[in-house]
């Protein structure tokens, strides 16, 4: 049954919806209208916004680290030892290392920070997580958010 249902769902004859002509015109008109402001103020603003987003990424990561450190009790007035997290690009790999040696951690990754909660966590074994950029590199200009718990 599984195979039959799957084969039926792949049949292009069965699933071929398209826009109505009126809607198609509307979509194109709306899309074009959404471009118009870019000829005015936005070209100056867009790069700034992009840079602001890029600048915000380390801040977001730092916030994550602070959250992590606070939860694990690393940062406290009585603790002389500071937590350590390193993110390094080694060849085509990104390596996250958490230096606490005491707890297991879970890492979540998504391009939409709102969906971090839905993403399946990857266990950081030995406080290290490695990722090959070749496998799932983000598109240009796209931010990737990581959360370590």
């Amino acid at each position, binding site marked *: 049954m599984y195979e039959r*249902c799957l084969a*039926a769902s792949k049949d292009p004859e069965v699933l071929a919806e398209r826009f109505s002509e009126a809607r198609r015109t509307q*979509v194109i008109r*709306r899309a074009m209208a959404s471009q118009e402001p870019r000829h005015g103020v936005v070209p100056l603003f867009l790069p700034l916004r992009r840079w602001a987003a890029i600048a915000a990424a380390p801040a977001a990561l730092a916030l994550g680290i602070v959250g992590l450190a606070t939860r694990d009790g690393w940062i406290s007035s009585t603790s002389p030892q500071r937590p350590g997290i390193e993110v390094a690009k080694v060849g085509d790999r990104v390596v996250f290392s958490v230096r606490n040696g005491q707890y297991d951690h879970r890492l979540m990754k998504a391009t939409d920070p709102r969906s971090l909660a*839905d993403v*399946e966590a990857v266990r950081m074994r030995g406080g290290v997580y490695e990722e090959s950029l070749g496998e799932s590199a983000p598109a240009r200009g796209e931010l990737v958010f990581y959360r370590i718990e």
Partner: protein
Amino acid sequence: MRVGPSNDDVEDARLAESARSGDAHAFEQLLTRHETRVFRVLRLMGIPSRDREDLAQDVFVRVFRSLPGFDSRRPFRSWIYRITVNVSHDHRLHSARRGEEPTTLDHDAVPESESGAVEDRVVLRRRLEAALGRLSERERAVFVLTEIEGCDSREVARSLGITTITVRRHLGRAREHLRRLLDADQAPKNVSSGD
């Protein structure tokens, strides 16, 4: 394994480049090339027919607005899948906030002129759609992009912003779950036609 961009990818990149500079005709061609794909994914992600055209419109308006950030070295298809899945996710969140029931079955009439074989396929497809509604959103997206859309795990990973390992894990679970649900449901079921 993918060795290079296909002719479709090259053509999409060319059209995206033209559309980015404001060419409405190029954008319309992109829309025509990808609209059935967008509708299909929205449908399989559980978007009911009453909302599908609105959301497909939302996808294409987002696509157009985001064209400046599109990396033409990557397949346009992966990129539009990502936007479609995101739009579907946002819709689900909004529906949940409004307290609407999630829709798992969609009803579209089988044209009377069609043969019994087409009708059978429609019924089988509805069964799969009903079973898809029992998966998590992530499993569902991975399954739809891999099994129905024919993407490889790298493309799915890129589209969903997850790792290939996670893709394979979700796919395995989804297949197992669906097989169990559908094979247990061997007895003929009367699926009604609504709209």
